[in-house]
């Protein structure tokens, strides 16, 4: 049941480029990239309970790492000249994940010494420092002039030739594939022993420590995986949009990810996807009559309303509603007892199905 629904849902996503126009496809691709970033943030925010407001740093680092690997660079550090010849974009993609994961490790090691509000502020500071470095290290990043002409992804088939992903359809499938992999990675991690340790830390840190859970180790692990996924999203973004400037480090993008996670439901697998689709599609729905500034006001109001009235997000709310409706035909509550994880998957198709119909 659960797997069929998931497969159907995925099959539907596969057919999307066949019946959607170019503009919506473009929106869907960028939304997909943001959803991957939001999923990675959810791992930290939802499962370990650490509100990282510097998440965009990993996204930006991934984007810059991938773009620079693909473009090549020539810099001087402390008198040494470092020259890097351009590599294929997929190598950049791998390096982006690696660099972002390393940064996640370093930041995790440093910042998990503090908690709560202090942790939030350390992460914000980190993001601001990376933005200022991107802005000022002109030799490497071109500063405000932006890195442009980033090559799109290229698939090389030995003996057959190369396929360069210029078009939107190819990029859509790439984002979908990476998104699916990210979903599976997070799902496997969260449902594993490690994931339960993370949730235990979120629920009650002193208690979790007392039964022998190594706090720093699990938090750093979550930060590394989360940063790596955010880096992957950043790399996808860099090669799809093909131009990046230091503005991708702006705090507002972190806020966007946080809104997506909170609205959808933090600590649920489907939450970031639902929230991401809503906030990714909202600009399309609103653009006819609202300026970008007005849209931001609507976002802010929505965010406050969600926190007030649906503090746990849409997915848990829909799941609760579903479980209230559902037992009647079955007479017993056995279904939910047998498949405790049915909820999020069902509600994912529900919640996002609704947004889907709104846009088509």
């Amino acid at each position, binding site marked *: 049941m659960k797997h069929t629904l998931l497969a159907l849902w995925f099959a539907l996503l596969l057919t999307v480029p066949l019946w959607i126009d170019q503009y919506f496809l473009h929106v869907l691709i960028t939304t997909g990239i943001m959803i991957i970033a939001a999923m990675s943030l959810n791992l930290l925010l939802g499962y370990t309970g650490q509100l990282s407001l510097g998440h965009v740093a990993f996204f930006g680092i991934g984007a810059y790492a991938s773009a620079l690997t693909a473009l090549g660079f020539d810099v001087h550090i402390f008198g040494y000249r470092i020259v890097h010849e351009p590599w294929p974009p997929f190598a950049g993609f791998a390096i982006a994940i690696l660099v972002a994961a390393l940064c996640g490790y370093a930041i995790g090691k440093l910042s998990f010494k503090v908690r709560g509000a202090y942790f939030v502020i350390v992460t914000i500071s980190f993001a601001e420092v990376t933005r200022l470095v991107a802005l000022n290290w002109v030799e490497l990043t071109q500063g405000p002039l932006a890195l442009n002409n980033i090559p799109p992804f290229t698939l090389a088939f030995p003996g057959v030739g190369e396929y360069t992903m210029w078009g939107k359809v190819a990029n859509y499938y790439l984002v979908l594939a990476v998104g699916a992999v990210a979903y599976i990675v997070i799902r496997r991690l969260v449902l594993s022993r490690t994931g339960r340790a993370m949730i235990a830390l979120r629920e009650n840190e002193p208690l979790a420590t007392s039964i022998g859970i190594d706090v720093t180790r699990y938090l750093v692990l979550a930060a590394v995986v989360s940063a790596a996924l955010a880096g992957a999203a950043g790399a996808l973004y860099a090669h799809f949009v093909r131009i990046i400037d230091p503005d991708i480090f702006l705090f507002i993008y972190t806020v966007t990810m946080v809104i997506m996670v909170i609205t959808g439901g933090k600590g649920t697998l489907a939450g970031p996807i639902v929230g991401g689709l809503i906030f990714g599609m909202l600009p399309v729905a609103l653009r006819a009559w609202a300026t970008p500034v007005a849209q931001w006001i609507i976002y*802010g109001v929505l965010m406050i309303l969600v926190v007030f009235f649906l503090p746990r997000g849409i997915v848990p709310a829909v799941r609760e509603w579903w479980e209230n409706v559902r037992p009647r035909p079955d007479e017993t509550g056995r279904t939910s007892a047998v498949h405790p994880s049915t909820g999020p998957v069902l509600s994912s198709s529900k919640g996002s199905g609704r947004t889907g119909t709104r846009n088509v």
Partner: protein
Amino acid sequence: MLGGTYALLGIGLTLIFGIMRVVNFTHGELYAFGGYMMFFLTSALGVNFYVALLAALVLGIILGTIIELVLLKPMRGADIDTTMLIMIGCWIVLQNMEMMVWGGVAKSVVSPLPADPLAFGPVSVAWLRIFVFAAAALLILATYLLIHRTKLGKAMRATFQDRDTAALMGVNVGAINTATFALGSGLAATAGALLGAVFVITPTMGDLAALKAFAIVILGGLGSITGATIGGFILATVEELGAGYVSSGYRDAMGFLLIIAVLLFKPTGLFARTERIG
């Protein structure tokens, strides 16, 4: 001069943070609001510079009270992340409203002070900067006296130390929260009005200001007015030195590097007593 306004920002934030346990993301917006009020009153309505400054303080207090009553009062007792998210939402709304009303073009305020600088031998200082410094110092002193010499201040300190005991002793903790938020907001708005007169006013001026205010609070330690004052001056000095000796592009990065360093080596801040927030 910068140190004084930074200290004002930091004091407002440290009070709100220390007493209410709210990470106030709207702080920077109140700062920008103060700047805009200054601009609006002096240029559009032709109000006197000093009156406008006072009005910015009062309007900041009013706006702060409204935010507190509407958004934070219903959420008393909610955890720190929840209120933080509400404040982020409010921040987005306020910033974009400023953008909508006044547009993205930077505004400047005309000051009535003489443009010729005051010269002390080789050093010359603009009158406006002296005025800003004096006004900031006066406000810091006033806040200090308010906290340490009045009944309201005593109630605030009691709430800061132990909210439940304070409530048992007959302190109206809810009203103290509102008063704290209003006071902090007023200080932020005044800081914005003062700096707005020196530099220019833009809708996003609050973002960096808010982050710097956080840096100051962390430097000084939670809930410590003295700490926030000294923290403000330290941050301003470090920034200027960083701009002078490293690179002016990294000026704003100095504060953040300072935060990271302080939190790594002395997470309670440089001047905190014993309290540690987990």
